[in-house]
């Protein structure tokens, strides 16, 4: 007798993050390709935020803020390269930088104001 054949109790059977990771990629791609500022920023936020959430959920990292900082640094570098080098795609560069900044602000706010349930107990 098998309690749940083919299913381990080590695994969660549900996670809310993958859908948003998958949505973030096309939205940010569309925004960056066509130079639509709000789409680029929103898509990148969705993508990077969901990545950070998923890393925390799966236990690969302990704190959300650290992964957000790393992701934001990558975006800063990428956006800087787009905006300030000879690539010269200014709108797209600033969109990426804006996303990086918002991500950083979001990370700090999350760290300061959101309490983990476990700490509360």
């Amino acid at each position, binding site marked *: *007798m*098998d*309690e*749940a*054949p*083919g*299913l*381990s*109790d*080590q*695994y*969660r*059977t*549900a*996670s*809310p*993050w*993958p*859908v*948003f*990771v*998958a*949505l973030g*990629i*096309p939205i940010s*791609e*569309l925004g960056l*390709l*066509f130079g*639509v*500022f*709000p*789409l680029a*920023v*929103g898509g990148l*936020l*969705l993508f990077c935020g969901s990545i950070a*959430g*998923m890393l925390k959920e*799966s*236990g690969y990292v*302990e704190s959300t803020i650290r992964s957000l900082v790393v992701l934001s640094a990558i975006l800063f570098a990428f956006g800087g390269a787009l905006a300030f080098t000879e690539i010269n*795609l200014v709108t797209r560069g600033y969109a990426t930088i804006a996303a990086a900044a918002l991500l950083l602000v979001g990370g700090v706010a999350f760290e300061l104001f959101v309490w983990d*349930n*476990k700490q509360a*107990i």
Partner: protein
Amino acid sequence: MEVNGQLALTVLMGVFLIAVAAWLARIEDWRSYTPLAGGGAVGGTKEQYVSEEKPSGLIRWLTTVDHKDIGMLYGVYSLIAFAVGGLMVVAMRIELADPSMTLLSNTFYNSLLTSHGITMLFLFGTPIIAAFSNYFIPLLIGADDMAFPRINAIAFWLLPPGALLIWAGFFPIPDIIPAQTAWTMYTPLSAGVGSGNQMNAGVDLMLLGLHLTGVSATMGAINFIATIFTERNEKVTWANLDIFSWTILTQSGLILFAFPLLGSAILMLLLDRNFGTAFFSVDGGAILWQHLFWFFGHPEVYILVLPPMGIVSLVLPRFAGRRLFGFKFVVYSTLAIGVLSFGVWAHHMFATGIDPRLRASFMAVSLAIAIPSAVKTFNWITTMWNGNIRLTTPMLFCIGFVSNFIIGGVTGVFLASIPIDLILHDTYYVVGHFHYIVMGAIAFAGFAGLYYWFPIYTGRMYQTTLGKWHFWLSMIGTNLTFFVMVLLGYGGMPRRYATYLPQFATMHQLATVGALILLVGQMIFVWNFVQSWLEGPKVEDGDPWDLGEDNLTTAEWTWFERKLQTAVTDGGEEEDAELATDGGETVTDADDE
């Protein structure tokens, strides 16, 4: 106006992101009842929460990371794509019943042609294989789930946006028209050069969509390689790994080398189109696209055909009452095809004027790849030879696969030969040849798998008579449509045209009749599939195909039997159900004593 538009979009995006965040907070909350009493709080970084229940309704399907659920999602998705791609081609075939332009405009025909190809290869072919492999590979190798369940979910969820982008040109969006580049997207046409209309954003959207499906396939492939290497049950060794897993492993290897290249080439094309680079005009010229595209494109053929071969190699022996003849050689031929598939791409380019010495070497390898393919074919035939053959619907589709694969393969061997290719290149012969493979073989194996495993994923049985109608209409339709195309090619009818000379009318009308027969067959399939899923008789025997009699049971049926015995539904309430069963049995035992 411009600023207002931006503002509106910003507000919309902001609201969307806040909605997402709110929803996520709610969902995360839904899992906050961590069983702390069980000592869950002590454990450092290890996951402290175990979700035993899946959420219900739509949320379950949006958040699932269970390989079986994701397999089902892939299956539903790919069958919808199959219907879309199929209806597109029905419209095209009806247009071709008459030599002149009647039903569809020539440009709309070109759009359908482009979209039919991409839909069938990337939105139906690759995902239907992923449906089977997601559901069954972990069961066949005794794994708990895929190695990376969340990546698995991401890989699936990239596909619906991909499909929407690929079809975006058909939606009523102002100023966007569908791509008319054909699925090969040859430059300079696809680079938007010249006075045509292919600079339209519809082509960019299609390229982005294609890029997404490529990312999805790559993520899936990495996951399968990791799963098959690391998650096998200790009883499953390389020596007794089943044939389907072998083909999926090889296919994943091919994807790993081929799809990232497609992704890069697409990005280069997008840069050429939008940011003034010159990869495919000055630097490499139009021929560079063909090299990059076919270096991906030919392995793609084997990416699509190897797992269906695996399904046939798995299913066909079950109804022949024997083990697969020459199992080892079927595995070796799979690996050989996998390696050789990267050395044949320029046979798509024999007519482009590349160096004749290069051409000759590609001809040699292309002819050589016929050998492992033939090894498989002979092994399937030998498996059936003197076997105790049961002509169930999945078996019929397997035999149909072998038959169509032989015709598709032999016509391919001729095309591999340079002198013949130079005559038949860009004719309907080529279209007939590859449709024998993609429809006659790949789709047939897909149907074989869908029928064979129907009891496992639905818990019910399909209607056998309708299944046989589906097979025979598909078999006749396929052979009528595509054999006529081979003959049209001999007659010199060029590919891709919406109109043609009146001398080809009869043959084209025959092909249209064949396509309509196929349509009727697939309508029967849809009816049978949906109705049986909802109302078919419940399967109570864990071995509905009586595989045990010939000692041919495989791991997924053992799993299914156990599932039926323990009466576990997917997700919640498993403990209750099992308690009830256990209790019931105990009482009965007590009564007996």
